[in-house]
């Protein structure tokens, strides 16, 4: 009897600890968001979102930074998404189990662990200098896409791996070719997971500073970009500039919190989008 009670006490203690830890993690998360919202909400206005910065970036808006970030996100996704998904398909569906496949896998994993500043340096050497794209949306997008490629490849691979082989075999037995099987049976089953991976990489890209530091981002612009060879302002870099090197850092502080809030809102929106896309594709499979 007492042994049983001891066991129960053990359980209660263990789960109590788990609960406490989980709550404190969630609590810290809310604290961060709350802190940014409280400090930043006062500067958010229509003008803040749609105007150019003025007076040494201590007033006005952050439109060029918003547009710049959107350009970089779009540019990097246009490159990274098809390349990443197709590589994932190739590795999982076509590449036979061999030392080469193991090598490709471990290289992809290693690439995912490379610090983003290193990607920035590499992007500067290759895209900015060697290929002479200059500091531009093009160079920045390519650098960012290199950085998120491993994430997209891995999610695609994992998504494909989770598809039961009975689906593939059933398709082959009906006279489908391998390509038809992948396109019409395997990929539709994977859409929810692939889309999730894609959108998570969007939020990763929109928050990165280091890869665009030497390849795309600029301190200040009072106009919007005209072509992919233009430099841009970007939200994370703008935030960095405002908090470290403005002309009047005290006056720029509210602007910095406003920028941070906009960045967080963009990332949250993207994550919401990911969830609804996931739900949409899941419902299609039901």
């Amino acid at each position, binding site marked *: 009897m007492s042994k049983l009670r001891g066991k129960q006490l053990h359980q209660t203690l263990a789960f109590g600890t788990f609960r406490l830890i989980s709550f404190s993690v969630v609590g810290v998360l809310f604290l961060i968001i709350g802190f940014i919202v409280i400090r930043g909400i006062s500067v958010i206005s229509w003008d803040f979102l749609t105007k150019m910065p003025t007076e040494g970036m201590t007033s006005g808006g952050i439109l060029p930074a918003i547009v710049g970030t959107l350009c970089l996100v779009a540019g990097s996704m246009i490159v990274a998404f098809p390349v990443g998904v197709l590589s994932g398909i190739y590795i999982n569906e076509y590449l036979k189990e061999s030392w080469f496949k193991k090598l490709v896998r471990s290289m992809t994993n290693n690439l995912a662990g490379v610090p983003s500043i290193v990607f920035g340096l590499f992007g500067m050497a290759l895209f900015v200098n060697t290929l002479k794209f200059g500091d531009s949306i093009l160079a920045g997008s390519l650098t960012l896409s290199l950085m998120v490629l491993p994430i997209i490849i891995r999610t695609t691979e994992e998504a494909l791996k989770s598809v039961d082989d009975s689906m593939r075999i059933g398709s082959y037995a*009906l*006279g489908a*070719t391998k390509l038809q099987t992948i396109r019409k049976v395997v990929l539709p089953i994977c859409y929810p997971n692939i889309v999730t991976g894609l959108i998570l990489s969007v939020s990763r890209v929109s928050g990165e500073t280091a890869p665009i530091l030497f390849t795309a981002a600029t301190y200040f612009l009072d106009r919007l970009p005209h072509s992919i060879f233009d430099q841009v302002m970007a939200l994370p870099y703008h935030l960095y500039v405002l908090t470290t090197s403005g002309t009047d850092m005290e006056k720029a502080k509210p602007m910095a919190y406003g920028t941070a809030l906009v960045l967080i809102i963009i990332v949250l929106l993207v994550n919401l989008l990911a969830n609804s896309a996931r739900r949409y594709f899941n419902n299609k499979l039901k």
Partner: protein
Amino acid sequence: MSNLKVEAIDFNLYYGEYQALKQINFQAEENTITAFIGPSGCGKSTLLRSFNRMNDLIPGVRTEGETRVNGINVYDKSVAVDILRKQVGMVFQKPNPFPKSIFENVAYGLRVDGVRDKHIIEEKVVNSIKQAALWDEVKDKLKKSANALSGGQQQRLCIARALAIEPSVILMDEPASALDPISTSKIEELIYELKAHYTIIIVTHNMQQAARVSDRTAFFYLGELVECDDTKTIFTNPKSLQTQNYITGKFG
């Protein structure tokens, strides 16, 4: 001898070093049902998969001799597997409908075959579902997902899916072993009716099932075809002692 649909001639199959099928000679005539019986690992499923070359998907498989469908050696270099598999339908042990609508599951084989005409697709889908004795249960929910069906319905859907591409031979790998008794008897009735139009080979572990549905029965043991004869003969008067022991439940 009447029309031979499915044959194996001095057929050997190896998984790497291991010989899974030894010198198999087998024949099945048009519009008959043949049951493959034998203990697990005896090679009956392997032989079944050699008629539509599903074994190709397993690395390290090597074959000698021939398996023939409609008189053509399916391992001949000129045979394209996707075209072969349109002539030889297959139903698996576990129902494996695609996570698509009921309609799209049955239409799948036609679509990958390049059929575009909506009316042809619709007609064939409806006919196949009717032929698979599923129509009354699904006619109002063709657009609903196949995953919402019961296991037995899913298996009949998989049969309908195989029928839609109008094969002449249907291979069934323990098609009822994952189903409850009522679904099983429905599938058995269905198999019996399909005999009028198709040549059917069914792998089964269920002796009564083999006795109930099949015209001929082939007994396999350790990769060899021990005996193949009329089902009645196999079950009442088998030539080999091994067959008799297996059927009476003394081993296996």
